[in-house]
């Protein structure tokens, strides 16, 4: 009995300290959580507002355009918990018997797309493409462009890119946000004018993804020594361009 108390009392005291700590932290978390959430989207919003003059933005998570029927069943249907979820999935995707694939309906409304994206998030589907989400630009009640949030791979690791596209897939503007590129080399991608080489490409003109595709020697020199950063950004932008074209059904 004595031995048991010897272990029990320290254990209880430890538990008390734990509990008090958890409660205090919970309170602090309550206070700081809203601020933290705001900070996460602040940089993104600033980039969006700098590119387009829209005030209100809605973020639509990217969903796969096409899945093999096996993937559709394993990765999506099986993860649904309610019949409503399964029905909405069936509504959003059309089955193509010839290729045994499920394809995203082309004429879905923005509301439906947003609901579908939210559904996939809820059931825990992990997005595989570089495009994470997109923000439609609405002018006179019709979509005049898209801003995309793309995850790129740079020299120092992951990069977050916000890129503005016209409906034909051509690039309007690009902002490089989070990144760990080398100061003096890859980090130069954050400076004014770096992205000019991409603007206008993506529609009829392909996005330059290797140095040789860049127009003049000056531009080639500018990315020499930081080609991995350049290629990472270029790959991401090209994926974005393809993505926009797919949404528009082209």
């Amino acid at each position, binding site marked *: 009995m004595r031995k048991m108390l010897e272990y029990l009392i320290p254990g209880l005291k430890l538990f008390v300290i734990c509990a008090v700590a958890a409660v205090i932290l919970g309170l602090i978390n309550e206070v700081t959580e809203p601020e933290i959430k705001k900070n996460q989207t602040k940089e993104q919003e600033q980039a969006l507002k700098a590119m387009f003059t829209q005030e209100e933005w809605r973020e639509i998570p990217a969903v796969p355009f096409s899945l093999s029927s096996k993937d559709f069943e394993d990765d999506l249907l099986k993860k649904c918990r309610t019949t409503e979820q399964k029905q909405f999935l069936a509504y959003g995707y059309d089955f193509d018997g010839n290729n045994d694939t499920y394809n995203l309906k082309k004429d879905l409304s923005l509301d439906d797309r947003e609901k579908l994206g939210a559904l996939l998030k809820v059931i825990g589907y992990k997005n595989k493409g570089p495009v994470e989400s997109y923000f439609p630009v609405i002018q006179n009640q019709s979509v005049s462009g898209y801003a995309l949030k793309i995850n790129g791979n740079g*020299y120092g690791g992951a990069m977050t890119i916000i890129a503005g596209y016209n409906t034909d897939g051509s690039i309007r503007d690009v902002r490089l946000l989070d990144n760990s590129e080398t100061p003096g080399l890859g980090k130069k991608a954050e400076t004014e004018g770096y992205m000019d080489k991409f603007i206008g490409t993506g529609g009829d003109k392909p996005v330059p993804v290797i140095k040789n595709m860049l127009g003049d020697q000056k531009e080639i020199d500018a990315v020499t020594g930081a080609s991995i950063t350049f290629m990472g950004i270029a790959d991401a932008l090209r994926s974005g361009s393809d993505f926009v074209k797919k949404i528009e059904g082209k």
Partner: protein
Amino acid sequence: MSYVGIIITFVFINNFIFTQFLGLCPFIGVSRRIDSAVGMGFAVIFVMSFASLATWIIYNLALIPLNLDFLQTITFVLVIATLVQLVEMVIQKMSPVLYKALGIYLPLITTNCAVLGIALIAVRKNYGALESFVAGFAAGVGFLLAILLMSSIRERLDTEWVPKPFRGVPIAFVTAGLMAMAFMAFDMGLLKNLIG
């Protein structure tokens, strides 16, 4: 990321000692002799792999569903401390010889930034369970690699003449710095060339 990519990244490109500075305390302290270095290295690999897995489980199956991710720091540290304690008990029971050899190093691993470091990094990068385990394993291997290279050099250094102010720790740091420079050859370019 592919598993090969993860391994190359954490063993070479983002080597915990030479690039990320995680795990320096035991590194400087234990790297004077090759056999102690190897022992520490293996212990670290074991703990780091399982710690990454254990913390992934706690984070994704307990903290997130319950909306408690602000308790991440506390729970991770406690999980690691518990894991090390368990490992110590198991080794003590199963192989007293091994226990004696590793002895003091095991408790030291608890406060080793490398273990907590890889757990936190795996979460930030959104790795899955197996990916976290592989990342922990690879980071441990990177640590072993660094500490093995370092101890071989230091054993030689101990028999050479070193200017008085540099003896002991300073020369170890300078050596590590030179090795880190060599490791800079391993960068993203390597990864891109190897696996495209």
